[in-house]
Each structure stands twice: as structure tokens, then as C-alpha cells.
């Protein structure tokens, strides 16, 4: 029984492209998979935006809740991208992403545009003050930003009618703070995914 072993090559990641059709071209193709390959610019640039937008669609999950317990995953992902890859999302990214989130979140339109833009600006300031940060510092920073975001968002929601007590968001706040490392992990996975070398473009994208 002949076992055909795939040569592992130079230790690079196995690309997703399938083995090709002609046997003569197979070796060529296999080499070409690793040499002269670059991440697709579309994925490399688009995954951060797309992941935050998909998380904005959380309300459409098969989970209709009668209380605000779900963490603001889209906002948390935005923070995680900003902390993991500073400069990947531009400073102004909070406004368009927030506008998309406002369409589905149930908040008054504009609340996420305002708060997410402010969060991105605060991160810029923090980057100047605290240049080398560990993960615990990032977590503490994210905790502060998420807490401020939730309280201010509840305040804006109350301004449009409704007078929910601040205590109503405490379970949500606790859950969000605990889940921040998990969201960071997810974003790190997406970060690896976006840099898979699949396209032939020789330009070195991806920071």
C-alpha cells in the first residue's frame, strides 16, 4: 500500500488551493503555492471590517432575550482589532462601523457612531501615553472603555424614552469584561486567517 506523503516544504502554512489537475504540473504547482504567494489584499484589508459588521448582526441570532445580557460583541471586536493590530483600522473607522451597528442594535441612531469614534480617539491618546502594554493592561483598558460605552449607551437609550436603571446593565457588563480575552482570541484567529498566502500578488500586504 503506497502512502503518498505530502512534503511539508519549508515549514510554511499549507495553502488552501487544491491539488491541480495535470500530474506533470503537480510539482510545479506545489512549489508555486509557497513561492511568490502573498495574502489576498481583499482578505487582508477586509476581514477586520467584515468581522465587526458580522458581529453587529448579533440581534439576529436564534436568541431573543428579554433582558440586555449580551455583551456588545461588535464593539469588543473593534477594540480587540485596535489593540492587536494598531493602525490596521483607521482612526475614523468608528463612524462607518458604528453607523452599521446602529441599524440593528436598537439604540438611537448615531449613538454608536459617536461612542465608537470617541473610543478610537481615546485609543489613539492611550497609544501615545502608554507605549508598551501587556495583555493585562490591554484588558484593563478594554474594561474601562467597555464600561464607559455601556453606561453611556444606556444613558443615550434612556434619553429617547425609557428610564431603565443602570443596575440593569451590570450583568451584561460583568459578562463583557470576562469575555474580552475570548474576543481577543477570536480576533487573533481571524488575523491569522486574513494573512493566509493565497493570491499571486507579489506585493507584501499585511503588516
Amino acid at each position, binding site marked *: 500500500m503506497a502512502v503518498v506523503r505530502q512534503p511539508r516544504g519549508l515549514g510554511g502554512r499549507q495553502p488552501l488551493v487544491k491539488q491541480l489537475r495535470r500530474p506533470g504540473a503537480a510539482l510545479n504547482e506545489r512549489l508555486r503555492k509557497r513561492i511568490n504567494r502573498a495574502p489576498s489584499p481583499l482578505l487582508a484589508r477586509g476581514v477586520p471590517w467584515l468581522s465587526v459588521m458580522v458581529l453587529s*448582526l*448579533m*440581534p*439576529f*441570532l*436564534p*436568541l*431573543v*432575550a*428579554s*433582558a*440586555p*445580557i*449580551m*455583551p456588545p*460583541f461588535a464593539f469588543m471586536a473593534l477594540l480587540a482589532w485596535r*489593540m*492587536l493590530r494598531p*493602525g490596521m483600522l*483607521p*482612526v*475614523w473607522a*468608528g*463612524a462607518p462601523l*458604528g453607523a452599521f451597528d446602529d*441599524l*440593528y*442594535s*436598537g*439604540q*438611537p*441612531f*448615531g*449613538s*454608536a*457612531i*459617536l461612542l*465608537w*469614534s*470617541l473610543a478610537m*480617539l481615546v485609543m*489613539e491618546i492611550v497609544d*501615545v501615553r502608554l*507605549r*508598551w*502594554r501587556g*495583555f493585562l493592561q490591554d484588558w484593563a483598558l478594554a474594561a474601562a472603555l467597555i464600561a464607559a460605552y455601556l453606561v453611556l*449607551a*444606556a444613558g443615550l*437609550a*434612556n*434619553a*429617547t*424614552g*425609557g428610564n*431603565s*436603571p443602570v443596575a*440593569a*446593565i451590570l450583568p*451584561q457588563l460583568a459578562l463583557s469584561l470576562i469575555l474580552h480575552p475570548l474576543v481577543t482570541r477570536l480576533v487573533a484567529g481571524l488575523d491569522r486567517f486574513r494573512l493566509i498566502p493565497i493570491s499571486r500578488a507579489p506585493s507584501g500586504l499585511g503588516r
Partner: protein
Amino acid sequence: MPPPNDRRPGFSRRAQLGIFTGYVLAVAGALAGLVLVIVAVVDNGSFAFLRRGANEVVAPVGAAGSAARSGSRNVFEKIGDYFDAANKNAALRREVRIARVQQIRMRALAEENHRLKTLLGVVETSRPPVATTRMVASTSASTRRFAVIGAGTNQGVEVRMPVRTALGLVGRVLEVGPNTSRVLLVTDAENVVPLRRARDGIAAFSEGRADGTLRLRLINVGVNPLKRGDVFVTSGSGGIYRPGIPVAQVQSLTPDGAIARILSDPAASEFVIVDRVFQELPDPAATPAPEPAVQ
């Protein structure tokens, strides 16, 4: 985490301008957000058209999700059914026997009620529901409690129509799109529902507390007559909800009323029923009706 190195663009004029433009855009975005929030606070219905379009686009995903919700619940229920099946069977038999007797008694009472009502000349207005549809989404992270259902003007849904499940009241329609509508849930703090105690008709009204419970306020302030476990149903005043839809059960007492748990948890319902508005009243906000509604 190393600090980002793109903050010092060197002598490249283009890079310097790029960074500056980024900051300008970010601040402009924040200011635009502030303006939009103020507009939304002043006029609650603004930007409804944006939400409507957005919901129409994503609603099919939500419909699939809601099917998954009921499906997954059934799996767990099915597994749970195998535990302690014999005892459950016996208990159910006993319950059925009792229920059968009660059913006969209820039928007799309904018959008598009908007869008395005809004697009094009260006209029963029971009309078929407007639509039966799926609940496709609900706000999860916001303190405002909205939901999206999969029926709109094409199915005959209109603003103010009450939405309920077989178990109880869910909310009322707030904004209508072609195939989706936005529902203000009973648990939202803006939703005030006139209620009465099912047993003896003590009048109260409920306000959502945004955490899944309702605050009941009695209309006659005095000694609080409520007890834990009291069930409240809609009273029909206000004209939106027909009387007798179950809403909430008292959980704990407060000086002027109670905190109550809603009976129809939106999380446990896949299908909802959209009813007609109980009594059409002339809407003060709309253009004056050609003839005032006869009460």
C-alpha cells in the same frame, strides 16, 4: 505589544497629511454621531426608513435562526423526556383527569357567560388575527427592548397592532416595513400597558424595566392588595390591546405595586400572532379622521 511605528511618518508630506486627515475624519465622525443622536432623541421616529431597509435585508437570516431556536429546544426537551418517564406519565394522567373535569366546567361557564352577555346586549368582537409570523430578531445588547418580526405592510400589519404569543402579550408594532416590522416589547421602559388582576379586576398599569421584568403600578393607591403569584391580564382600556391577554405574574411587592415576571418570554417563542387594534381611536398625531370613531 510593541507600539505602532506608523506614527512618525518622517519627511513624507503625503504620510503626514494622511495621518492628519485621519484625525480630522475621526473627530468629524464623532461630531456627526452627536448630531444624529440629538436628532434621534428629539424625533424618535427619524431614521426609521434606514432601519426598515436594513431589517428587510437581513430578515431571512433571522428566520432561519428562529427555526434553529425551536429545533434546538425540541432536542433538549426530547432528551429530558426520557428521565423519570414513568412518574411523569402517572402525573400527566392525573393532570389530564383533573383538566377534563375543569374543561367541562369551563365550557358550562363560557356558555353561561355568553348567555348573560347576550342578555346584556354586549357585542363580542373577536376578529381573526392579522398575521402569524416568526420573531426574527431582538435587541440583545441595548437596554431598549425591540424585536423584529417577519411580517409587514404586505401582510397587513400596521403600526400600533398588538403582538402576542399563545402564552401572553409580547408587545406592539412600532415601525412597519414591507415584510418586517419592529415591535416595542412589553419589557421596554417606554411601553405602558393597562392591566387588571385576572381574579378580581384591580386596575394597574405596567412599565418595562429593561431587565425582563415589569413594574406594576396600581391606579388606586392605598393598602397594597397584591400577592405573589397574582396574574395580570390586559384590561382593554387605551384601545390597543383587547381585554384578557395574559401579561405578567407578580414576583415581589413594592410600596405602590409590584415587580412582575412576564408570562410570554420572547426568548421562548418562535411564532407570534399579530392582532388587530382592539378599538380604533382617532390618532391625535395623524391627520384628523373624516368621521370620529364611534365608541
